[in-house]
């Protein structure tokens, strides 16, 4: 008898014999809840609901802070037991006033005549969200590859320098000038990010350290260059560049009345591109494989070092795109070393809130754009420090990082991951 035949017959025999062992798992399948309950369970177990609840808790905590900062509320709480209604009313007025100002500053201002004026805050929100989304995508993509890109600031600054220099330093026809400037920005950011990737791949230097250090290098390099004729505007005594040429400015989307510029379209395209890259492309597949388990990736023949460099190039490139938006869309009157406006760090928060998923980051970027836009309005209208908004943002991330806390507050069912762990044990 040939050996092939032997193993074939034993195999088929064994599969037949194994069939009954499968049967105990079938009652389990029957007892699983109906489709809707499963969906509901997944939502309540899932991360989306945690995120939403985190935002709600953070807003509630923000309400308390708003109350604390309000003069009238503090006064009325002084005689709380004599007339509690005063205190509660004052508290309610302060919080409602603040949050309605936040809303009117971020979405729609009912105080202004006509729809076109009223909707302006929403377009401001989108403008603020544009670099946040793009930078968030960069940080999120690095997260998916197992890298903590804390160097968003440096990458954005280098990109702003490159895009800005192209923007005012050379003359090109409308359109082409813009494209060249954006590409230069992306290249600058990619270079700065790729440097950290290369250091990690070659020498094992941790990217958290190198990217933070490269932030300083970028900041002081740009500060220096802004005092040399290369970047400094002629006749300027401050570290400030010349304004971006008309031909390189990203065009307005909705006319001169609104700040929203073409960058928002690019941010949407970047989100679509990142979604394709992460979940459909072979490069993204390697990014994720290295991010989830670099050991297995290496054994499977994936060049882990090269993948790190690629991931940092793409991540830096996205942050570079965000940096170009700053000089070509938001601040076209010339830039300073503070042109990044802290977006490189906010991007980490946005990526966390968006769970490093492109469309999640898109939504998180919109939310934070709204906070930014509304925060200023709140300060102007109610005299409440806009810093409260930053506290709310920080609380959101804090709560997202501690899902058991959110589950406990809202009595949500237990963590899904524990369930799967036990399944591993039980269904062997």
């Amino acid at each position: 008898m040939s050996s092939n035949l032997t193993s074939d017959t034993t195999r088929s025999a064994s599969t037949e014999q194994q069939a009954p062992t499968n049967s105990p798992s079938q009652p389990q399948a029957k007892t699983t809840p109906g489709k809707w309950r499963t969906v509901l369970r997944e939502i309540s177990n899932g991360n989306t609901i945690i995120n939403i609840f985190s935002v709600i808790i953070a807003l509630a905590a923000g309400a308390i802070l708003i109350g604390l900062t309000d003069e009238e509320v503090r006064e009325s709480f002084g005689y709380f037991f004599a007339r509690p209604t005063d205190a509660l009313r004052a508290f309610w007025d302060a919080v409602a006033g603040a949050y309605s100002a936040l809303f009117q500053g971020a979405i729609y201002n009912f105080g202004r005549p006509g729809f076109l004026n009223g909707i302006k805050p929403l377009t401001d929100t989108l403008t603020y969200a544009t670099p946040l989304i793009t930078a968030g995508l960069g940080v999120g993509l690095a997260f998916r590859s197992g890298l903590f890109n804390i160097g968003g600031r440096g990458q954005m600054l280098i990109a702003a320098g490159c895009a800005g220099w192209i923007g005012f330093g050379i003359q090109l026809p409308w359109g082409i000038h813009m494209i060249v400037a954006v590409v230069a920005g992306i290249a600058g950011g990619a270079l700065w990010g790729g440097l950290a990737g290369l250091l990690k791949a070659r020498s094992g230097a941790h990217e958290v350290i190198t990217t933070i250090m490269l932030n300083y290098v970028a900041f002081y390099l740009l500060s220096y260059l802004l005092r040399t004729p290369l970047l400094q505007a002629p006749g300027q005594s401050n570290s400030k560049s010349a304004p971006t040429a008309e031909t390189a400015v990203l065009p307005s989307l909705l006319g001169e009345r609104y700040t929203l510029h073409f960058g928002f379209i690019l941010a949407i395209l970047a989100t679509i591109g990142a979604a394709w890259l992460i979940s459909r492309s072979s490069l993204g597949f390697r990014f994720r494989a290295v991010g989830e388990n670099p050991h297995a990736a290496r054994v499977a023949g994936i060049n882990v070092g090269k993948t790190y460099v690629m991931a940092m190039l793409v991540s830096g490139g996205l942050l570079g795109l965000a940096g170009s938006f700053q000089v070509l869309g938001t601040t076209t009157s010339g830039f300073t070393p503070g042109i990044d406006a802290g977006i490189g760090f906010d991007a980490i928060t946005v990526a966390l809130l968006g769970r490093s998923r492109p469309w999640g980051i898109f939504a998180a970027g919109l939310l934070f754009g709204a906070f930014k836009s509304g925060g200023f309005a709140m300060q102007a209208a109610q005299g409440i420090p806009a810093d409260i908004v930053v506290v709310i943002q920080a609380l959101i991330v804090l709560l997202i990082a501690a899902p058991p806390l959110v589950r406990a507050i809202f009595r949500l069912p237990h963590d899904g991951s524990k369930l799967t762990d036990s399944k591993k044990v039980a269904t062997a």
Partner: protein
Amino acid sequence: MLELRGITKRFGTVTANDGIDLIVEPGQIHCLLGENGAGKSTLMNILYGLYHADEGEILLDGVSQKFAGPGDAMKAGIGMVHQHFMLVPVFTVAQNVMLGHEPTHPGGRLDMAAARDLVRRISNQFGFGVDPDALIEDLPVGIQQRVEIIKALSRDAQVLVFDEPTAVLTPQETDELIAIMRRLKAEGTGIVFITHKLREVREVADTISVMRHGQIVGQASPTASSSELANLMVGRPVELTVKKNAPAPGDAGLQVSALTVTDERGHRVVDDVNFQVRGGEILAIAGVQGNGQSELMEAIMGLRSASHGSVTLDGKELLGSSVRQILDAGVGYVPEDRHVDAMVAEFSLMENMMLDRSVGLPFVKYGTVRQPVVDQFTRERMAEFDVRAVGPHIPIGRLSGGNQQKVVLARELSRDLRLFIAAQPTRGIDVGSIEFVHQRIVRTRDAGVAVVVVSTELDEIAALADRILVMYQGRVIGIVPANTSREDLGLMMAGVTPTTKEDPHVQQFN
């Protein structure tokens, strides 16, 4: 006396333990036998206070116990010797034993003398021969395990739970452990011995409880035959031996010459290793865990940069090539640590199936993953390799060890191979899957592929080997025929050079 009554534990919709009754008498060795995932570990974690039972109770000498955590269980007199030792490597034996209940002088200064005395006393009482001042990291695995036992005994354990204690031991160390267990038993300690190795059970057990699918499916006496026990465990008749014909060795295959590997600390972990495996034969590499087998395989796979010597496959030099090039040369590799090196737990079965082929055809075109192709490929392989899973889209981490290993095997065997390396191919998988994996390995050999199997289990070595290479401290201690006795292999694994006649293949190099 320890009694578990009607213990039930559910995780979501899954019942891991279903109404378990178990009695452990003092001075009795109670074996808990079952496949991986049968619910043994869950049960023991309940006993040790790590989980809480949904129903049922734990009684010690007739008194119901409530354990909030391992601390309570220890206080009540339950000790646990974990499969993975819970020791601090840079601490001494005495420091590890005292950890968590340190004796102190007034003022909080540690009383090291008391801790040393305690270790010495227990060590002498049971003849462990453990030096209280030795550093854990310098001790062999077998001695480390004794430190774990001392730790448990130092807290006056009345019942000791051994969780798969022999997995990391040489045959000789296993014999010594069994002697220690008998001694503990004679001193009146109740012992729960968790294992899936049938031979040990029959040697040492007073009572055997067999678990399957979260239930106790039967009691057996130690006189029961191995196949009876295996049938109880799996719930169907099991073939314990692999049917295989004589090998038909063909052409050159793998040739390893003067291979030396140094680790990060500069130690020679593989030392001047020579051997040859021809197409159509299985070379089994035996040895106690940590004697250079893993490093040898990693060096062949291009995963170790500090390697010198020569590794050729069909005459082509592999050493110095990248992992990618070595895979492309026709090498399939099942790494020993499945969770770390062979799969991405969060990835779906599909993604794991294409892990080693993420560039170019068949799975990638124009930089985009061809989902339908991967999907179809995965479904076909799942059918061929009998992978039991809901579908190709679920994360591989949710599967049982056996099914995970089948996925890894399916991936590695689906390329055109010239050499197939399987390191610990059946570690942590159930009996039913072991049978299947062994058959596939033999079938791969019969297709003319050179096969190297690394295993610490002599049963596996005996089942698969055409020739056996034994490693000890990074060196080849000998290459012997497949019919070499267990005793001789055990001696070789402990570093004793064999007296049996050397395999003719090895002479070419010496």
